[in-house]
């Protein structure tokens, strides 16, 4: 079973290109539909938890699914499987890239790719805002975070800590208000 887990997560790590979020539907297909290790319901619950936890989402998913299937050993094996392919492919690239870096043809190719990459990251700014719902409050919070990090050079760590604390305080205020109304 552990070998099976390793194989599945290795495949997920090796064949999902373009980051962690792209891996989620692939993980679901493998784990729920093909292997039937987890029910759709359990998978959805786990997914909700992994997305509120810090860290690489694909790794979080590997820990969670591995644990559900085969306990602690299962989660370690799954993480190892998921990390293997990205690790070795980038390592190989890092070793070879040193020799290619100053190649003028490679430099021209990268000159074309750099603005494209910035555009590809600009897209999720909008899609993220749309998925949480753009209101004055969320818009202002997002804008404040942008300015703090980009213009004022504040570490994102502080911004995240303050945002989490703010969210918690807001939750306490809301529950107190509901309690006072006798709900």
């Amino acid at each position, binding site marked *: 079973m552990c070998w099976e887990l390793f194989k599945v997560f290795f495949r997920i790590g090796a064949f999902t290109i373009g*980051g962690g*979020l792209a891996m989620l539907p692939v993980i679901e297909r493998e784990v729920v539909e093909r292997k039937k290790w987890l029910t759709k319901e359990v998978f959805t619950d786990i997914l909700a938890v992994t997305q509120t936890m810090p860290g690489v989402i694909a790794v979080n998913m590997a*820990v969670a699914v591995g644990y559900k299937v085969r306990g602690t050993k299962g989660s370690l094996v799954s993480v190892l499987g998921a*990390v293997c392919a990205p690790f070795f492919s980038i390592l190989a690239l890092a070793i070879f890239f040193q020799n290619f870096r100053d190649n003028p043809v490679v430099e021209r190719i990268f000159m074309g790719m750099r*603005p*494209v990459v910035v*555009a*590809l990251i600009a897209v999720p700014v909008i899609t993220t805002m749309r998925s949480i719902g753009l209101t004055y409050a969320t*818009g202002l919070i997002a804008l404040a975070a*942008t300015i703090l990090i980009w213009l004022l050079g504040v570490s994102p760590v502080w911004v995240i800590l303050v945002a989490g604390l703010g969210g918690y305080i807001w939750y306490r205020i809301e529950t107190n208000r509901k309690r006072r109304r006798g709900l």
Partner: protein
Amino acid sequence: MIYLELFYTFFKIGLFCFGGGYAMLSLIQDEVVHHNGWLTMESFSDIVAVSQMTPGPIAINTATYVGYTASGGNVLGSIMATLALIIPSVVMMSIVIRAYKKFSQNKAFQGIFSGIRPVVAGLIAAAVLNMATPENFVDYRSYLLFSASFLAAYFYRVHPILLMVLGGFAGYLMY
């Protein structure tokens, strides 16, 4: 000692990144480019570009790459950085998964995350603006490539890999 610095830095990134992939970029930039100077913003962009076309999460790719280059070309650096990045995830998820039902319904936890969610958009926006440097945008052609690929990705959902290949090809022809 470089290995400890790599471990400490990527442990911090693993501990404080919420919202996955793109949201981590500003944290990685802050630590790797601004704070430690292990990469220029230009080579950081190159790694993100390569990450779009190679398997695996961007954070793992960056950790492996930076671990190798910052340690002067040592595989041990890659291992340290990648391990440090995933240790917080593995430890915390291992604890949380034992009581995931409680966690998925825990209101206080949802409160914390509801504060972080709008910030995630800001984190990504800051990463974009940080990458809008003269090295990444050399002339008007860069702006043209940026606009065209933004429109293609947002409105026509053109696949990122295809856009990267087209961008690379355009760069080869134009420069």
